[in-house]
């Protein structure tokens, strides 16, 4: 059986509140807070990017896994904000954790599901016996255009998962992906900010794919919502994951531990993976977890996960995700946020 | 080895010399030194310059400056040891004359620092630190000395006011030096209220960015006596190195290279430090002067702050330090500083220091330092 042998989360300490953004654009903060259930989001410092967060998240995953990084045979970084357009993030990560040179590396991009995409590939490489251990990271420092609805949610964070066949923290019992071509959200080459289809991103996009993947994997596994202790959905805002849970027959209690978005924002490729880390932090041996990501374009990857006894040994070898989310925070004003995110035009 | 004397000195007003290029600044001072020496020919010239490449994009100064001085094909060398390049030039000139290789050697120092922006100048100066393991992390020289200050304050209780008093003292001296870049007095309050550069150091703790040059002429002491010139001999020359990375030092509060260079120079001169009448030292930052007074042995370790508070290093004190105004008030064109220190001592020993004359001065010492003390040069001078 292959599965997760270590996991790690990373969240920058900076936050900006919805009110602070709304104030600048003359928008109605209460409607964002109530309608989208967003309160604040994480913001990377100027010295943090997808690579640095991936490295720190991966170091934490390594601490929990307790393996020799030289035995990692594959490293995948899923992100839509790779610092280089050409030159991999994965090579920096592999080098920083000491996995080079006997390692396969690739950068992945699939809007918000590039993280689970890496997890899917890493898991299956381990399953096939091609590599002993594989590392997959979902990390993003995404940008929403100033004043756009996405600016209230586009956040920064990373989650890393090490896969192997021994020392399992969680077994992966089933995987399933649901994919169609869907122009709901995109960013053309050389463009700084993405564009999206507004309300079109809801029913035919997020909801159709997440329910498609969730129902598909439950069918294959012969399971129903009540069989899971926890469920983690992609969290582009607070409302969508709760609503899709309701549509599928999951309770708020099953969703709540991994529902980070109101205080974290949408960390894109890190979103559902970070929800999974927060869920593992509090899970008990034997707990079943359903993970369903969503990436515009569009697709959902789903995983049925069973937690093992080893969770109790490893969860406190690195900081818990809720602690990263709730402590050591610094609130930015829009000016500092705009500077950090390079939204201010400077002299050449 | 032959006894070596300084028979000519030349220096012009320092500051932001917008109209003048590096080559012009150097040539003017060199001509003054040659005229003061009253020599027709020079056998060789040695020029200290830290970073003409980064400051004005010009290397190969040896020949350029010989050419503009109208002295080709004279033998010429440019030497570099960061902010102690001038001191190093003096030592090389001294060795050349003492060895008998040359009789008359022109020793100069020059830096033209205002042709680049402040950020670029900070970068250029920063190249005297370990570029890969200090500069890479955004460290600057004020930052490095600030870290020495924090360590010194933490360990010895040196106070913020004591640091300020160094600047106040040196500006008081510098107010009597017409060639100084900032010939005016400042107050402790003024220092404490000036803008922060690298905590706890403020702008008035820092030596400035300066354009300037200085030159001296060396010859065998016997020749000087025959010329009936006032003879100031270089009786000791000491040089030492240390790690340039501050973190690699055993003690962040101690300037070992200065300590060793001073011991060597004093031993060569056959003098003890308390036989010296005045000191020109490398106060690139206020904390530097405090640490230098300790390394030279003027005070015990950790007592440098108290020494300035007690007036020990004032012009009329037991050990007058920086009667010229130091780097702080006189200015710090980095490659020229070590040579200008020698000029001040020569003027003092000749009794030509005007308002800032240390009475009855017969022996002087200069201490010139590169980086955070990665290199130090100490010279001892005596009047005949």
């Amino acid at each position, binding site marked *: 059986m292959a599965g997760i042998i270590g996991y790690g989360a990373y969240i920058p300490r900076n936050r900006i509140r919805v009110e602070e953004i709304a104030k600048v654009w003359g928008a109605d903060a209460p409607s964002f807070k109530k309608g989208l259930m967003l309160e604040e989001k994480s913001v990377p410092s100027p010295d943090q990017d997808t690579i640095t967060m991936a490295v720190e998240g991966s170091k934490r995953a390594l601490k929990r896994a307790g393996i020799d990084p030289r035995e990692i045979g594959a490293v995948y970084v899923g992100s839509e904000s790779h610092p280089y357009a050409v030159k991999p993030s994965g090579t920096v990560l592999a*080098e920083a954790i000491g996995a080079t040179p006997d390692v396969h590396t690739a950068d992945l991009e699939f809007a918000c599901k590039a993280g689970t995409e890496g997890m899917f590939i890493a898991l299956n490489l381990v399953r096939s016996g091609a590599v002993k251990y594989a590392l997959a990271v979902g990390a993003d420092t995404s940008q929403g255009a100033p004043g756009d609805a996405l600016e209230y949610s586009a956040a920064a964070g990373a989650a890393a998962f090490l896969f192997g066949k021994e020392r399992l923290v969680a077994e992966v019992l089933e995987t399933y992906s649901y994919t169609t071509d869907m122009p709901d959200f995109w960013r053309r080459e050389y463009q700084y900010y993405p564009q999206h289809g507004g309300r079109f991103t809801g029913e035919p996009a997020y909801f159709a794919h997440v329910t498609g993947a969730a129902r598909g994997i439950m069918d294959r596994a012969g399971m129903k919502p009540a069989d899971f202790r926890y469920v983690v959905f992609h969290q582009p805002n607070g409302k969508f994951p709760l609503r899709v849970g309701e549509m599928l027959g999951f309770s708020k209690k099953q969703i709540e531990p991994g529902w980070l978005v109101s205080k974290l924002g949408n960390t894109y490729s890190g979103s559902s993976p970070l929800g999974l880390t927060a869920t593992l932090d509090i899970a008990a041996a034997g707990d079943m977890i359903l993970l369903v990501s969503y990436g515009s374009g569009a697709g959902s990857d789903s995983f049925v996960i069973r937690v093992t006894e080893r969770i109790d040994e490893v969860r406190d070898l690195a900081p818990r995700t809720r602690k990263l989310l709730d402590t050591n925070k610094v609130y930015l004003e829009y000016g500092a946020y705009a500077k950090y995110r390079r939204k201010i035009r400077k002299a050449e | 080895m032959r006894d070596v004397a300084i028979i000519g000195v030349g220096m012009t007003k320092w500051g932001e010399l917008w109209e003048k290029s590096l080559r012009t600044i150097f040539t003017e001072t060199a001509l003054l030194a040659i005229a003061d020496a009253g020599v027709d020919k020079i056998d060789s010239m040695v020029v200290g310059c830290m970073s003409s490449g980064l400051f004005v994009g010009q290397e190969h100064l040896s020949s350029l400056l010989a050419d503009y001085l109208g002295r080709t094909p004279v033998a010429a060398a440019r030497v570099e040891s960061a902010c102690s390049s001038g001191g190093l030039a003096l030592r090389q000139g001294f060795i050349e004359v003492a060895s008998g290789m040359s009789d008359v050697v022109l020793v100069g120092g020059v830096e033209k620092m205002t042709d680049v922006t402040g950020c670029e100048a900070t*970068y250029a100066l920063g190249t005297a630190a370990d570029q890969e393991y200090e500069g*890479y992390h955004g460290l600057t020289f004020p930052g490095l000395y600030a870290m020495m200050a924090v360590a010194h304050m*933490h360990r010895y209780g040196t106070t913020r006011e004591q640091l300020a008093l160094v600047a106040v003292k040196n500006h008081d001296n510098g107010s009597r030096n017409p060639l100084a870049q900032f010939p005016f007095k400042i107050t402790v309050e003024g220092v404490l209220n000036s803008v922060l550069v690298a905590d706890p150091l403020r702008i008035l703790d820092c030596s400035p960015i300066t354009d300037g040059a200085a030159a001296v002429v060396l010859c065998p002491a016997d020749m000087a006596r025959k010329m009936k010139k006032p003879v100031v001999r270089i009786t000791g020359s000491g040089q030492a190195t240390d790690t340039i990375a501050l973190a690699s030092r055993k003690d962040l509060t101690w300037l070992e290279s200065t300590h060793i260079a001073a011991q060597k120079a004093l031993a060569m001169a056959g003098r003890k430090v308390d036989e010296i009448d005045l000191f020109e030292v490398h106060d690139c930052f206020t904390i530097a002067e405090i640490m230098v007074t300790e390394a030279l042995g003027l005070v015990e370790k950790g007592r440098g702050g108290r020494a300035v508070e007690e007036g020990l290093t004032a012009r009329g004190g037991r050990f007058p330090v920086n009667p010229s105004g130091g780097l702080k008030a006189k200015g710090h064109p980095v490659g020229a500083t070590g040579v200008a220190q020698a000029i001040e001592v020569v003027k003092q020993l000749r009794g030509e220091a005007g308002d800032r004359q240390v009475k009855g001065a017969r022996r002087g010492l200069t201490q010139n330092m590169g980086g955070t003390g990665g290199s130090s040069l100490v010279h001892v001078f005596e009047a005949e």
Partner: protein
Amino acid sequence: MPTPSRYWREIPQRYRMEAGKCKACGFVAFPPRVVCPACGAREFVPAKLADGGKILTYTIIRVPPRPFEDQAPYAVGIAELDDGVKLTAQVVDCDFADLKVGLRVRLEFRKLSEEGEAGIIYYGYKFVPE
């Protein structure tokens, strides 16, 4: 613009804190050296620096050199790592008021600077409070 080779060759130090430990006297050289500055020996074994330590001294850079213009003010410190090696790096995620001698820090992977908008990105270690 420097060629990337200069950055590339320091990667083992900047990313993984690789040092050299003198076989003869145990001195830990960071970065690794050819000659041991403590005893003069020339044989080293690879070593990895401790990832935590305490601040020995610090400052806040308010007048930065290029290319750090947009980062100022930023804190820099020298820490003594738990293996005794002294290391210089920026101190981040730390309110300036909390900087003090003795502060416990650990090393974190961060972006140091970059070669303009189009050049390479320089990564490395910084201190963050534990």
